[in-house]
Every structure is written in C-alpha cells, then in structure tokens.
C-alpha cells in the first residue's frame, strides 16, 4: 500500500465563469472571450498579467460561460481581475464566478443545484 498526500497549494485551479453583458444580444466567440480575459488581466497587472497562461478548457458561446484553468500561484490574480472588469469595448459587462476548485472533477456535479420542490 502506498499513500501520497498533497496538502496546501494545488498545481492548478479551475474556475467556472460566466460573462454577462448589459446588452443580452451580444455574441461572443471563444477568441473574443479570451481577449476579454486578457484585457482584464492587462488593466489590473499590466503586461506581466496579460502574459499569464490561462486555458479555456470548455467554452459555451450560447451562455458565454467557460471553464478556465490557471496555475495555483496566479489564481487569486485572475479572480481579482475578472471581478474588477466592468467594460469591454465600451460595453458594460461583468464576470460571474460560479465555482472555483482545485479539482476539475468537482465541476462534474454541483449539489447546490439540486432543487427539489414538492407540489
């Protein structure tokens, strides 16, 4: 039997995010979405921030939502930059961070979404 325990900082963090525009009809493709994130990092941390590797693992253009992957050491920076973003291309918008986890597997289920109603 062998046991490996990893405590503390995980190598990667994953974020489930949704980009909301005031203009609900906005169409955003994955490249634009990536640019919005880069601009957010740029305005907060400058060139160094813009160069941080962020992976868009999954993107849904209907809802403008995505699963992002970022190194543990940059997670707080990315979260902060996304929160502070309020405009893209002079259009008001905001990121909603739905779920954050060091395990990608955790995004496969969300017990808080289990809503049962009795009639």
């Amino acid at each position, binding site marked *: 039997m062998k046991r490996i325990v990893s405590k503390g900082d995980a190598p990667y963090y994953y974020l489930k995010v949704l980009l909301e525009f005031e203009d609900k009809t906005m169409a955003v493709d994955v490249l634009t979405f990536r640019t919005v994130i880069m601009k957010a990092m740029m305005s907060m941390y400058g060139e160094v921030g813009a160069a941080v590797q962020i992976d868009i693992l999954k993107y849904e253009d209907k809802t403008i939502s995505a699963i992002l992957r970022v190194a543990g050491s940059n997670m707080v920076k990315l979260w902060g930059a996304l929160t502070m973003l309020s405009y893209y291309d002079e259009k008001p918008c905001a990121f909603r961070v739905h779920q954050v986890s060091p395990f990608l597997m955790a995004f496969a289920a969300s017990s808080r979404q289990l809503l*049962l109603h009795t009639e």
Partner: protein
Amino acid sequence: MSLTLKVDLSPPRSKLVIEKSSFDDEKSRHRKNVEEHYFNHKMELFIPGCAELPPSAQAVFDMSDDFYIIKDLPLTELINKDFIENFVKKGSLYMLSHNTHIDKHNVYAVLPTGKLILSVHKDTYEELGLVGQPSQFNRKVKRKFVVEVDLTQDIFVPGKKNYERVKKGFQRTELKADFLLSWKPRGTRQSAGPVLSHFEDSYRCDRRSQVQQTNKHTELLLPVVNSSELEESDDGEWCTAREWYEWLGAVSCGINCNEAPEHYISRYSCPKPNKLTATAVRRSMTGFIAPGRVWAVLEAVRSDMRDNQCPSPWAALTVHGFADSPVSWARREHGFHHGGENLYTLLIFRDSTYWLFQAVGTNDICP
C-alpha cells in the same frame, strides 16, 4: 502613520490523497471509504473499451432506488420515541437538510450510526442550550458550533434529563428544515415505505427517483497508467496519477481532450503517453445515494472484470458528496470555503489493485 495594504495572493488550501492498494489486502480501506461517505450526491462509472455497461453493473444501475423529501420537518420529530425505535434503530437511516448552505444556514444530518449532527450559528447554539464544540474551521471567531446527539443511547428516552433538555431546546428554538431521507431496513427485504407513512399524515412528503444519464464516447484517447506506479517514470512510459485524475475530470465535464486547440485558447490535451480506444461508456446517477448502492456498483464492476465481461484495462467509479453536508467521511467535520468538495474516485484495475483518490476543500479534515 503609514498604511500598508497586505494582499494575500495564495490560493485556498486543499487536500488530495492518492492511495494505491489491493482489494485483497486485509488492511485495505476501500470498504470503509465507501461506507463512511454517507451523503452522496452523484455517482459516475466510466468504463473504456465498452459500448455498453457490463451486465452486473447495468443491473445495479437499473435497480429502482428512491429517496424522499420531507418538507418543513421540525427537529422535535427526529427525537420522537416511535421514530427512533422503528427507524433509527432498525436500519440505516440517512437524513440531510436540503437547501441549507453550511456557510450561511443551520445544517442538520442524521447518520446511519444514529447520531444527529447539528451545525448551527452562534445565536441558535446559545438559545439551544446544548453542549457542543466550536466548528474546527473558525475557532477564533466561533461563528458556528457543532452539536452531536446520540439517538440510539439507551438512556435517551422521554423522562430522562438529557432527552428532556434536547426536547426543550428544539421546542424553544423551533428549528425545522426540509430533509432528504433514505432508509434501508436491516436484514429484511422490507421496503422503505413505512418511513414515508410515518411522516405522510403530518408533513408534505415526496418520493423522488435518482436521475440517470448515459454518455457514450467514441475515438477517445486514454492516458496510459501503470497500476503499480503512482509517480512518473524516468523515461515517460506512463502518466502520473495526478495527470490521470485531471484527465478523468475533463472527461466527466465534457471537455474534448483529444486534441488541444491553438495555444492562445488552451494548452491542455490528453496527457502523454496515450492510447486510442474506439469506444467508452459513462453512466451517472444523481440524487441522494446511500453508500450501499455505491458498494453494490463497485462489487458488480469487480465481478464483471473478473468474468471478463468487458475488455477494458480499468474502470473508474467517482462519487461526489454533498457540498453542504456537515460531515465528509464518518464524523469528520466538513465545511464550505469557495467550494465544498468532498469526493472520491476509485480506479479499479483488472489485477484487483486499485487507486483511491480522495479530494477535499479548505474546510475539511484530511481523510
């Protein structure tokens, strides 16, 4: 006077335990791990190399297994003598308050061991007048308290001091919640019906079935793993356990990892070395799942693999716990901080060795 702003850029802490063992090992903890993870929200079985689930596993998934939801149930009902005698003591009872967020609300749970666990706010705790412990995760501010009541104690009966104290506390605070409930009577093949009729007259009850879903994959890249080695090899002959775990997470989330898109979008792709499999099947069940069902699936998959019912090199069983459960494994306290993950994955190999991944978030005790 100077003002310094201290910004903490470290991410929230988490824990991942990876264990390699064999089902045949006497000291193996796999059974304990499954049985003591009481409140399961989702179970997912992934088998590469098969287009359909093998017969025994399929049969366990097809078995009907309902759970109940009871609306606005006062906690005084949980210490009702008839309830304790007929249900708590005569089977495995799993109850968890529904739609209560452990970082915001009071949360209650009844474990199959007969323990009632209350995770309550400071003001409720003070009004309740019962002895408990401050939550392990905010000891300094003492925002939440955990109270344990042993329902199965012989002296926990009406008329005794402790019982009356608990009853008065529940009456005074008028605590109530919606509860998810699952009950397996001990020994007999009796159904869980009586527990529903016990509550039906006074409270709104509803029977729910687990939601099942099947996904089929074709032409999927599988990372190559070596059942006897968790760490990476010197010349890259196999993937590490951690890489494999991330990959399985990607598959479960419906992420295409066969090929990476351009670097600007993502650099993630299936870890190397990998092998192409023509087909793979993924079956999931979501709801309120008792550990007995998880155990049945595990046993079925193992027997299918022994009987060579599927040509797959391995099978993976993932179980997600409730984010707002007051316990993760056994009586280990669980909380919510950015996330309430408490999940485990069993990677079952043909030679009866297995890898167990246990993942928990910040407000959790190491499993």
